């Protein structure tokens, strides 16, 4: 009897890209749920806008680049970028903001660099920074939960007030504050943490990057807080406000744009964490995460180069 031949191994693969991406999307559900509870239908509209734009832009770019469209739409990577971006922009921004941000993320940050696997920058964060720089006013006005008015985020507010000479204690009496960080934002942060821990347990991500991001942020925050608690906010404030947990578990862990060795991942994570602290404390933008991630993305190839296993000789 005759048989076709092929090359070993003959065992089926234990994983697929779309399984990874699907689980990332599932892990975002708690945060989406909490945000829906806080912000209502506006969130769903943003998600819908971003996702449909992402799928259309992805299909169009794949068509232009003569790549298999169905296969890449099913890998779900475009949807992950779109959902992360939609969750990062204020729910009450005009429709064209989320659309243009998504287009930038998918077309420029992803496909012009070669598509899935080749983009040096996290597409969602590149889209976010594009929007933040282009439309700062719309991008910093978040709706107050359960309300129709808008206000600055607690990070933004704290920064402004500190600049005006108020102490941390005085600022924390503002109604914007909740228990430890932004009012109700603490729940969103905890929802990201929950989803992230699930990803860890499912071994979709390794612990190195999240742990390093959180440590890289906590250590300088704690040091500064211990030195002067009137001028510097507490480490818990930094962990629970803004998108710290979202960044640690969902954004920094994007494999394409992160370092790949475990040692490299630790350095990469600490870099992001400390950049978040530096930018939040001394930088011009209080929304530090996108900048921190993009800067660390720049460093990832060098980190990989210098953290090669011992037996790989440097030439």
């Amino acid at each position: 009897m005759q048989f076709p031949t092929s090359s070993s191994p003959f065992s089926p693969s234990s994983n697929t890209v779309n399984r990874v991406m699907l689980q990332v999307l599932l892990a975002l559900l708690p945060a989406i749920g909490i945000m829906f509870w806080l912000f209502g239908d506006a969130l769903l509209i943003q998600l819908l806008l971003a996702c449909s734009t992402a799928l259309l832009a992805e299909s169009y770019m794949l068509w232009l680049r003569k790549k298999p469209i169905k296969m890449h739409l099913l890998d779900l990577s475009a949807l992950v970028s779109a959902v992360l971006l939609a969750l990062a922009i204020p729910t009450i921004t005009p429709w064209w903001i989320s659309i243009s941000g998504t287009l930038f993320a998918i077309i420029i940050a992803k496909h012009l660099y070669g598509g899935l696997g080749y983009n040096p920058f996290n597409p969602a964060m590149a889209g976010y920074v594009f929007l933040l720089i282009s439309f700062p006013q719309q991008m910093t006005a978040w709706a107050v939960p359960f309300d129709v008015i808008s206000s600055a985020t607690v990070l933004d507010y704290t920064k402004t007030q500190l600049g005006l000479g108020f102490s941390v204690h005085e600022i924390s009496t503002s109604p914007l504050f909740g228990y430890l960080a932004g009012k109700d934002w603490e729940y969103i942060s905890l929802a990201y943490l929950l989803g992230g821990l699930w990803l860890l347990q499912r071994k979709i991500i390794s612990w190195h990057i999240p742990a390093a991001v959180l440590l890289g942020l906590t250590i300088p925050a704690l040091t500064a807080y211990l030195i002067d608690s009137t001028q510097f906010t507490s480490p818990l404030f930094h962990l629970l406000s803004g998108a710290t947990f979202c960044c640690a578990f969902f954004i920094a862990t994007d494999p394409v744009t992160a370092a790949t060795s475990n040692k490299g991942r630790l350095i990469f994570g600490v870099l992001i964490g400390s950049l978040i602290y530096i930018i939040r404390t001394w930088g011009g933008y209080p929304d530090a995460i996108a900048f921190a991630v993009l800067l660390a993305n720049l460093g990832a190839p060098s980190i990989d180069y210098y953290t090669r296993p011992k037996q790989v000789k440097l030439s």
Partner: protein
Amino acid sequence: MTKLAHFHGGLELAAHTLSAPIIDSSLPEELIYPLLQRANSYATPTVKIGDYVLKGQIIASANSPFTTPVHAASSGIVKSIEPRIIAHPSNLADDCIVIETDGLDEALASSPCFDYQQETPENLRTKIHQAGIVGLGGAAFPTATKLTTKQDIHTLIINGAECEPYISCDASLILQKATEIVQGALILQYILQAKHCIIAVEENMPQATQALKQAINAHSIQLTPVPAIYPTGGERQLIQVLSGTKLPTKSRPAEYGFICQNVGTTYAVYQAIIQGLALTERIITVTGKGIKQPQNIRTRIGTPIKHLITQSGGYSKDVQRLIMGGSMMGIALNSDEIAVTKASNCILAMTSDELENKPVEMPCIRCGDCATVCPEELLPQQLYWYGRSEQLEQCQDYQLFSCIECGCCDVACPSHIPLVQQFRAAKGAIIIKEKQVEQANLAKARFQNQQQRRAREEQEQLAKAEKRKATIEKMKAASLAKKKPL
């Protein structure tokens, strides 16, 4: 119990164990023996077409340390010496000795030996070589050559950790021949004068472990169950698990005082020394969903695969691939007319639902899962990257040649990139390039030599001409001087 170390990465693969006892294969009509033994090492036929041979008779002789004699596994007539398809990844035909069996199975008289300790290690090694013994774990490296080392060997490791999940020939052999394996281990230990001897089995073989424990009894052999993490059965990985020493790239275990032998090889050594029998049969696992009755079969080396398939109830309907070896490192064969060799530990017939129904290859997302599972701690994603762009020097910097082609990275890859296949291609490209460079250097050296020789010859000729000229001048001057007074 000794504390075990772990090697980097590896995979926990589902074991496919067989509980059926070993059966003896019936006699096939033809036995086929390829002359090719290892890469570019051929044995030389010592029989002619029409010769009558007996079981255990040498039909091809060894002429390098990388070959061993080939023995007939049954009596019969040498029918032809002709190209047949051999068990090789290329699936190409190469010269084979074909014996038509006569059904009598007459054997050459054997010369048993009752006390191996009366013999010198040198004599025992010669006997092992003459018995045609090679590593039966799959690599088929001549055992006598492996046992010949100037290094001081402190530990002999008997490898009973099955190489791959589908293969169970070693476990079944241990169950049946534990005492003989222990005897074989003692002979090997005597040859090597090794202080320690460890028999390693997998944790999930309780019966085999029990059988060995009884067989070892009072002998000073250590029995160590090791975790069933693929590729623990790999020589370098097993040494790391047992000793905690990770052998450096390109080093051989003997340099560090270790020698590893498979349990099948150990049993063959027992048979060669104590019973005086040549290696003419081995146990082969015939398995996979493509086989109706999976089982372990004691098989004459040289038996065509289809003969084993028939005895295992034939193929099931949906058979898709015929593999020699396991699912991780085996080679896909294009025909079941191919004969089993000393290296064949498993015949695996896979159906489409066992096989990967090859999903489309996606781009690498740099997740690093391949590096996490790599037992050699390489960075497959970087090797892939450089291999793809034909940056072969970088491939070598990233230790491409340390890759043992275990296939863990392939299985872990969420993008289904055929990494091992690509690494093999890159290795081939590098070897070809090195040969070309070598040849170019040779040609260059030859040309330079030629140039130098020509220049030297020219110089010599010039010098000669000068000399001659000078002599003529002198003679002229002399004759002039003679003339002058006149």
